[in-house]
Every structure is written in structure tokens, then in C-alpha cells.
């Protein structure tokens, strides 16, 4: 041996700690010999690691120190039975504590499931560290465009020209499509097109079919398990045929894949081979971006360097096409400030950190993880404080036991251990209940969150183990302070059963109550504001009307019958107006570029293509000019913009101004009208410039039907569906009510509101349990005082005040503390919105009032009972 190397000290210490003398020498000798063997074979790290494992493998009865462990076990047994007896004697005390801790732990565990779910997104792929998503960040005419999908040919070029790339897969998400399987027709929006390498790069579990072949041939389809059930029940789906959309050639099912886990940002119900879309698969269009491109890099590839190297692709492939479309040389194009850069985004961070548009699944929000995490910890702390208060409050009942133990020679440290052990036992009971409750309430929690969670109590033994450790930890934390208080009782005083409250410091207990109430008030205030904001967003005047609006999806199924269908609907008295459009507010707009004829400047506006009367259905307000009209033939080359667009263009007098746009091939577009500003996204986004143009063809995605208020909606729906079925040859009729659909944009907020409401009530419940505990402690120490005061003529009224003024003071301090804290919390959360509700002082007052009233009710019972008590009862004890 060249260098002297010894086994890890810590492991040796552990070994010496539990191992008896008799065994130690030979065991340690063997371990050390093995360590040196491994040092030569496997190197230092592995040898050290194995040494640790060996030490732990020896934690068995044969090795334990005999004498000590016996007395230890006897002691633990005694502790255990004392605890259980104490629980049995004070059932109310036991139950309130158990309830508090269980509620706290259950809330904490459920929130932890949510957080783990968010943090574990996409980590189940073995390759997740080496996976990157390639996107382009384009800066065009001063507007930075970050979109997740990139041009389809990129993946192929990367694979061919860059040795850093091990593998690549493209995923394409198109519009919902009609699936027709032997007459079973459904419109599916969970359909993804994917390269054959999909199952090699990712770890989605293929149940039937071949990893390499299933998505290779054109028109191959892989179903998820739940979709096999939906379409085929228990039949074997392999080889079955189906039709997709307008494609008249059959698609064949070549495989079955397990449903993607909830914590995957790639979600699908069926996969179709990308080779079924030849113009994407082999396409050479570098301008469009429609393929989410995932690259598997070799180990030790420097990503920043690769990003720089990828710039060559831009000059070799994309630049010529830009030159072709813009008519500028790439040098000129770049000189005017335009730029396209490649970006490699870490796959595992997409869910929480992506700021790219058009992600496959809307990304999560990191700030919600913090918010939920903090709330979870707060609830757990409230529960722990609660135990501390209850345990100290009940200390009088244990004083005699402490006295006797001390007289019998128990040491102070042993008493501390005993009481900590007792709280650990209680926490373990709570942990046990938590396992059940977390299992039972997970589905309701998922329902509130509107989100499936990949983790549950039973997902892995580690979860239960962690819960066990957590419970023990909580037990120790909760038990420390009461243990110190109880163990400090002077034996003589304790035996005399006259407790001096001065001996136990009140400030800590009061401080804990202050914290509990501060936290409760903060949670209630935040809940109120969350609801305020949701209400504000749902009722705010968006600039258009979403009530009484029915939207029919996929009007392309009508083909040539679109106008006829619309005209027929209008014959119904309950239908006020019918229009069609490419998109709707909240459904995503595409960008069009405009150029004023008199200036060399380009403007990019989100654009919607619509039919006549769109303004009536959406109730848009016209500020100047007119809307599109059938009488004006030239309106196919007209545009209506909003006030923000006018401002952006800088026109004093917008009506009649002429613009050009590449979509109109050199023809002039005349501005014929200006609308008042309205929101085209949720209120998370500010108001932006918008342009409206007439739809030149039948490529609309939505038919929007404005109903008359107060009409029989069910009957009207039936009427519309009848017409639809008649004109579309049994195409499924899919519709939604616009206001309901729009609310979905605020799903995160609604979920948060509900979670907060539940947590707020739980926190105040636990806090009240603690409060009752504290007040009963106060009363128990002042019984004689109350009795004497009563004898001397104090009224019930003054006595109640005497007993509760301390509490009132505590509550006032709590509200004072809670207001600034809530203000900052609210302010942080409201940063998520472009349009914020004003912070209403009434929320603060209301929340504080609620807590004070509930707290007051909780203590009044105790104080009034104490004040009404016959003084003889309390005074005759001595």
C-alpha cells in the first residue's frame, strides 16, 4: 500500500457506538480487511461507501451492547406505557392534540405531493440530464419571439452534421382531429405526431409493439392504454384500422403505450408516426416552426458552445429562405436589427422555467411552488405550536408524576427524554392517521387543483418511510419545549400540587399563540384577496361580451355548407347572430406584419380573421369608422384595428390610411374602423394592439352563436345539433359556452383560491384548539385567584375580562403583525397579473374580525364557566 488510507471515521464511530466489546474487535477487523481489499479493486470512494453499508448491515441483535440495551428497552417500555396511560386518562387532551397534529401533517403531506409532482416533471426519463429542446429565438422588427417549436428540418440536419447529437425526436401537435374507428367517431385533441425515435429517446413504457418500429411506417398509430379501453374495450387493438381527419387511407394501430405519467410535459392519448405528415417529415421549410424538437446530447457536450455552433445552420439553411421571402440579402436583414438565434433548453426545466410560447402543455409556475410550500410549512408549524401549548397547559396533571420520578432518582435528562418520547408516540399516531387521510383525500385534492398528481402515499415505500421520519421529527420538535418545562418542576412543589405559574415562562406560549393567529389571519386575508382577484378578472369589462355565447368547434366539417348552416341557425328565434372566426379571445392569436405605405417600418399585430357581424356577437365597441360590411366589395382588403394599434402606428387620423401586408401580396389594406381596446388573452397579459380582417375562405375554427337572453338553451342546443348532424354527415357536435371556457384561463387562481380556503379554515381550527388549551392552562393556574376575587365581590363580567384580556392583547398584536406580512404576500402574488384588483382594506379588517370572533367564542366558554364557578369549589382544596 503506497498511501495509508483508513476507513471513514464516522462509520467507525457508529460501529463502536452500537457494537458490544465482545463482537467489536473481530467485526471491525473483518470490515477493515474488506475495506483494503476494495480499496485496491474499486478505488477509495466505493470502498468507503461499502464500509458504510457494511456497518449498517451489522446493525443486528447479535452485535448490540447487551447490558445497556436491556435497561434501555425496559425504560422505553415504561415510557411507552406511561404515555398510553396518560392518553387514556386525558382523552380530550389526547384527541385535540391528535386532531391538530393530524390535520397539520395531512395538509403538509398533500401539499408536499403537489410540490414533488411539480419538481419531478420529466425526471422519469433516464436521459433527462442529457435532453435538450431546440428552439429559435427570433428578434424581428424589434419584437422578440420565443416559441417552443422550431422548424421541422432542424432535427435531421443536427443529426447529420453535429456529432454531439446522439439522437433526436420531433413531436408535432396539430389541431384536434376527427378519429373514425369503424364508425366510432370522436374528436381527439390528445394526438401527437412523433418520430420513430420517440420510444428510444424517451422512457414512455411501450406495452405492445416495437420500440424501434412502431412509429416508423407512415400511418402507424400507437394508442395509450386508456384509449385502447375507450375504443376497443378488452379487444386486442393491434392491427385495427382507423381514419384520421380527411385522410381517406386507413391508419393501423401498431402499438400500445402506458398512459404518460402525470408529471410529464409531453401528454398524449395517441401517437401517430410523423412520417404520416410527409411535408413536415421531409419538409424543407425553415421559416415555419411547428415541430417540438428534442435532442439527446452525448455526455460532456458543452451546451453554450453547441448553441454557438448551431448558428451555422441559420446561415446555411434558414438564411437563403429569409432572403427569398423578404427580398433582402441576409446581411441587410441582420443590419436592420433582425436576428435568429438557436436556443437549447434543458428538458427537465421545461415545466417550471420555460418562458417559451406554444409549449405542449402549459408550463407550471414556480411562484406557486413557493406559495404552497410556505403555506404547508405554516400549517405544520401551527399544529406543532398547538401541541406545545396544549402540553404545557396540561402540565399540572403531570406534576405529581414528575415529582415522584424525581424523588425516585430520575435525572432531569431522563425526564426530558420521557416527555419527548411521549410526543413522538403521539406524532406517530398522527402520522399513521395521516397516511390514511392523505390516501383518502388525495382525489379531492386533485379535484380542487384540477391536476393529477403522480405521487401518493402508496407510490413507493420511501413515501411511508419519509412520513415516519417526518412524524418522529414533528414529535421531537413539538415535545422539546414541554419536556423542558415539565422536567424542571421542583419535586416538593410538584407533589404539593401548587403550581407556580411564574416558574414557567409565559412569553413563549403567548408568542406561539401570536404566531398562530398571525399566520391564520394572513392566510385568511390572502384567501380573500385571491377570491377578490378571481372575481375581478371574471367580472372585469374585457371589452367584449362572453355571456350568452355558444361556440361550435371544428366548422370545417361543414365544408361548403358553412353559410347555409349559419343562415339556418339564424332562423331560430332564440339565435340573435351567428358568425365564424379563426380564433377567439383567450384562444391564441397569430401574428401578422403590417407596413404603412408611407413609412419603412414594420408592425406586428395579433390578428383574427372573422366574418361579418363579428362585432355584434362579441359586442365590440367601434370608436371610429365602420365595421366590415357586405355592401362594401373592397372590404376583403380592409382592416379594423384597436386603439392600441392606432397608437402604435402613430396615426392622428387612422381611417383611410393604407397598409401593406405580406398576406395580401402587394395590395393595399385600408383601415376602415377603430375598435375600443379589448383583452385577447386572460388578464395575466396586458392589452395589446389587435387587427381584424375578413376571412377570405372557410378556414374558420369556431362558429360563434349569440343567443337571446332568457331563451330555452337546451331546446336551442338541440335545434343547432340537429342542423349540424344534417350538414356534416354525423360528425361529432362539439361546443362550449364561452364564459365557462374563458374561466378555465384562471384555473390556477381558482385552484389556489380553493386550496387556500380549505387551509385557512384548517389553520384557524388548529389555532383555536391551541387557544382553548392555553386559556384552560391560564384558568387552572388562577382558580384560587378567581375564587378570592369572587368572594370579595368581583362580578362575572370583570372576571371574564380578567381571564381573557391577555388573549385580547395577544390577538391585537397578531393582527398588527399580520397586516404588513399579508400585504407583502399579496403584493408578491399579484405580480402574476397585468390587471390587478386594488387591495381592499376591508379584506384585512374582515379577516381579523373573523379570527377574533372565532377565537373569542372558543375562549368565552372556558372563561365564563370559570367565572361562574362557586368559589367554595376552588378555595376549599386546602
Amino acid at each position, binding site marked *: 500500500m503506497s498511501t495509508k488510507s483508513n476507513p471513514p471515521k464516522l462509520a467507525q464511530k457508529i460501529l463502536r457506538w452500537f457494537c458490544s466489546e465482545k463482537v467489536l474487535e*473481530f*467485526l471491525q477487523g*473483518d470490515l477493515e480487511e474488506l475495506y483494503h481489499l476494495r480499496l485496491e479493486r474499486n478505488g477509495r470512494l466505493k470502498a468507503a461507501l461499502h464500509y458504510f453499508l457494511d456497518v449498517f448491515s*451489522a446493525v*443486528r441483535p447479535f*452485535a448490540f451492547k447487551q447490558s445497556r440495551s436491556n435497561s434501555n428497552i425496559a425504560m422505553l417500555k415504561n415510557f411507552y406505557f406511561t404515555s398510553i396511560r396518560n392518553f387514556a386518562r386525558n382523552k380530550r387532551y389526547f384527541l385535540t392534540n391528535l386532531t391538530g397534529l393530524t390535520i397539520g401533517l395531512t395538509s403538509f403531506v398533500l401539499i408536499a405531493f403537489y410540490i414533488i409532482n411539480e419538481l419531478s416533471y420529466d425526471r422519469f426519463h433516464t436521459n433527462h440530464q442529457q435532453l435538450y429542446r431546440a428552439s429559435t429565438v427570433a428578434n424581428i422588427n424589434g419584437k422578440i419571439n420565443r416559441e417552443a417549436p422550431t422548424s421541422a428540418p432542424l432535427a435531421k440536419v443536427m443529426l447529420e452534421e453535429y456529432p454531439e447529437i446522439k439522437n433526436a425526436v420531433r413531436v408535432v401537435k396539430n389541431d384536434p382531429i376527427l378519429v373514425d374507428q369503424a364508425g366510432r367517431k370522436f374528436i381527439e385533441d390528445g394526438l401527437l405526431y412523433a418520430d420513430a425515435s420517440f420510444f428510444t429517446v424517451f422512457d414512455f413504457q411501450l406495452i405492445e409493439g416495437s420500440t424501434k418500429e412502431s412509429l416508423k411506417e407512415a400511418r402507424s398509430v400507437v394508442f395509450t392504454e386508456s384509449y385502447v379501453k375507450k375504443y376497443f374495450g378488452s379487444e386486442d387493438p393491434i392491427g385495427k384500422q382507423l381514419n384520421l381527419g380527411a385522410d381517406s387511407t386507413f391508419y393501423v394501430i401498431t402499438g400500445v403505450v402506458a398512459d404518460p405519467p402525470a408529471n410529464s410535459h409531453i401528454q398524449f392519448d395517441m401517437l401517430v408516426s410523423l412520417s404520416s405528415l410527409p411535408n413536415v417529415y421531409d419538409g424543407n421549410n425553415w421559416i415555419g416552426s411547428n415541430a417540438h424538437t428534442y435532442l439527446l446530447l452525448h455526455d460532456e457536450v458543452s451546451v453554450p458552445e453547441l448553441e454557438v455552433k448551431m448558428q451555422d445552420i441559420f446561415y446555411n439553411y434558414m438564411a437563403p429562405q429569409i432572403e427569398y421571402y423578404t427580398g433582402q440579402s441576409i446581411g441587410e436583414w441582420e443590419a436592420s436589427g433582425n436576428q435568429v438565434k438557436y436556443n437549447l433548453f434543458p428538458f427537465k426545466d421545461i415545466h417550471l422555467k420555460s418562458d417559451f410560447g406554444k409549449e405542449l402543455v402549459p408550463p407550471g409556475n414556480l411562484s406557486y411552488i413557493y406559495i404552497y410550500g410556505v403555506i404547508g410549512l405554516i400549517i405544520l408549524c401551527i399544529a406543532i405550536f398547538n401541541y406545545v401549548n396544549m402540553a404545557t397547559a396540561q402540565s399540572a396533571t403531570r406534576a405529581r408524576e414528575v415529582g415522584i420520578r424525581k424523588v425516585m432518582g430520575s435525572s432531569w435528562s431522563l425526564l426530558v427524554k420521557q416527555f419527548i418520547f411521549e410526543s413522538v408516540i403521539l406524532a406517530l399516531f398522527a402520522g399513521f392517521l395521516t397516511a390514511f387521510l392523505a390516501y383518502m383525500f388525495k382525489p379531492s385534492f386533485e379535484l380542487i387543483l384540477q391536476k393529477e398528481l403522480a405521487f401518493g402515499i402508496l407510490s413507493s415505500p420511501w413515501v411511508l418511510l419519509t412520513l415516519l421520519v417526518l412524524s418522529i421529527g414533528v414529535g421531537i420538535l413539538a415535545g422539546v419545549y414541554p419536556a423542558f418545562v415539565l422536567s424542571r418542576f421542583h419535586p416538593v412543589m410538584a407533589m404539593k400540587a401548587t403550581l407556580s405559574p411564574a416558574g414557567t415562562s409565559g412569553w413563549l406560549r403567548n408568542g406561539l399563540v401570536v404566531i398562530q393567529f398571525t399566520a391564520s389571519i394572513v392566510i385568511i386575508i390572502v384567501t380573500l384577496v385571491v377570491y377578490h382577484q378571481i372575481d375581478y378578472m371574471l367580472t372585469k369589462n374585457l371589452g367584449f361580451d362572453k355571456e350568452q355565447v355558444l361556440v361550435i368547434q371544428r366548422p370545417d366539417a361543414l365544408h361548403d355548407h358553412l353559410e347555409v348552416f349559419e343562415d339556418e341557425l339564424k332562423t331560430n328565434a332564440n339565435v340573435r347572430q351567428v358568425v365564424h372566426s379563426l380564433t377567439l379571445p383567450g384562444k391564441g392569436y397569430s401574428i401578422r406584419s403590417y407596413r404603412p405605405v408611407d413609412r419603412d417600418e414594420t408592425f406586428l399585430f395579433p390578428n383574427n380573421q372573422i366574418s361579418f357581424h363579428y362585432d355584434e356577437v362579441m359586442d365590440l365597441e367601434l370608436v371610429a369608422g365602420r365595421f366590415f360590411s357586405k355592401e362594401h366589395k373592397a372590404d376583403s382588403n380592409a382592416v379594423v384595428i384597436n386603439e392600441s394599434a392606432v397608437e402604435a402606428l402613430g396615426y392622428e387620423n387612422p381611417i383611410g390610411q393604407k397598409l401593406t401586408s405580406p398576406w395580401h401580396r402587394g395590395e393595399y389594406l385600408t383601415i376602415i374602423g377603430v375598435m375600443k381596446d379589448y383583452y385577447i388573452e386572460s388578464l395575466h397579459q396586458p392589452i395589446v394592439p389587435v387587427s381584424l380582417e375578413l376571412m377570405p375562405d372557410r378556414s374558420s375554427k369556431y362558429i360563434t352563436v349569440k343567443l337571446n337572453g332568457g331563451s330555452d338553451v337546451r331546446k336551442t342546443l338541440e335545434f343547432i345539433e340537429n342542423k349540424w348532424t344534417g350538414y356534416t354527415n354525423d360528425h361529432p357536435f362539439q361546443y362550449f359556452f364561452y364564459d365557462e371556457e374563458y374561466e378555465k384561463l384562471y384555473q390556477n387562481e381558482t385552484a389556489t383560491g380553493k386550496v387556500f380556503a380549505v387551509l385557512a379554515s384548517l389553520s384557524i381550527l388548529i389555532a383555536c384548539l391551541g387557544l382553548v388549551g392555553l386559556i384552560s392552562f391560564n384558568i387552572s393556574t388562577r382558580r384560587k385567584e378567581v375564587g378570592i376575587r369572587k368572594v370579595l365581590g368581583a362580578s362575572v363580567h370583570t372576571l371574564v375580562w380578567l381571564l381573557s384580556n391577555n388573549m385580547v392583547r395577544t390577538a391585537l398584536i397578531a393582527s398588527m403583525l399580520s397586516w404588513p406580512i399579508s400585504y407583502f404576500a399579496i403584493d408578491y402574488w399579484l405580480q402574476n397579473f397585468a390587471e390587478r384588483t386594488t387591495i381592499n382594506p376591508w379584506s384585512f379588517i374582515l379577516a381579523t374580525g373573523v379570527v377574533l370572533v372565532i377565537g373569542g367564542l372558543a375562549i368565552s366558554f372556558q372563561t365564563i364557566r370559570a367565572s361562574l364557578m362557586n368559589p367554595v369549589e376552588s378555595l376549599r382544596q386546602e
Partner: protein
Amino acid sequence: MKLGAFEELVLLAVGVLGEDAYGVTIKEILKDKTKKNPSIGALHSALYRLEEKGYLEASEGGATNERGGRRKKYYHLTSHGIKVLEEANELRMAFSREVPGLNLNTSS
């Protein structure tokens, strides 16, 4: 007579090793023969159990540098241990003979 499967293997290993049977060598030979790697803790636990049952006896000695100067605990089969092994083997053979189609003539 109680003898677990692992205990039986340990007894056999001690028998094979003769004069040189202690923790490390027993572990190595078990790994070699069974292709499974028993943890040292499990092994020591079994050795102490077997010693208690009287199938093994131990002697101490042979401190080396690699062991940090600590002695080894050498194990030997007792006559009781040998008897127990024989009984276990006999029981198994007799039992196996009653299983139709089980080939018992595998050499090696």
C-alpha cells in the same frame, strides 16, 4: 434440529476452508460459490448463531496490518456441526428422490 438455508451454506463454507475460516474468507468463498454477495453483518450474525447452537467453535488469533492489528476469529466445524450437515443433506436427498423427473445424478 434447526438449520436455515444460509446457515447451512455458512457451515459448508467453514468446512471447506478448514484452518483458514474467518469472516472475510468465508464471505469470499460464499460469493464465489453462490454468486450472491452476503452482507458482512448477515454473515457475522449467522456465525454467532451457529456458535451458540454449538455447530461451530471459535479460536482467536492472526492479527495483521490490514486489520489494523485486530485479531481474527477462526471458526471450525464441531462434530455436532458435521452431524447436522449430514442430516440436512440426507433429508434433502430422501425428499428429492420422491420428486418424479428430478435428475439427481448431476455430477459436480
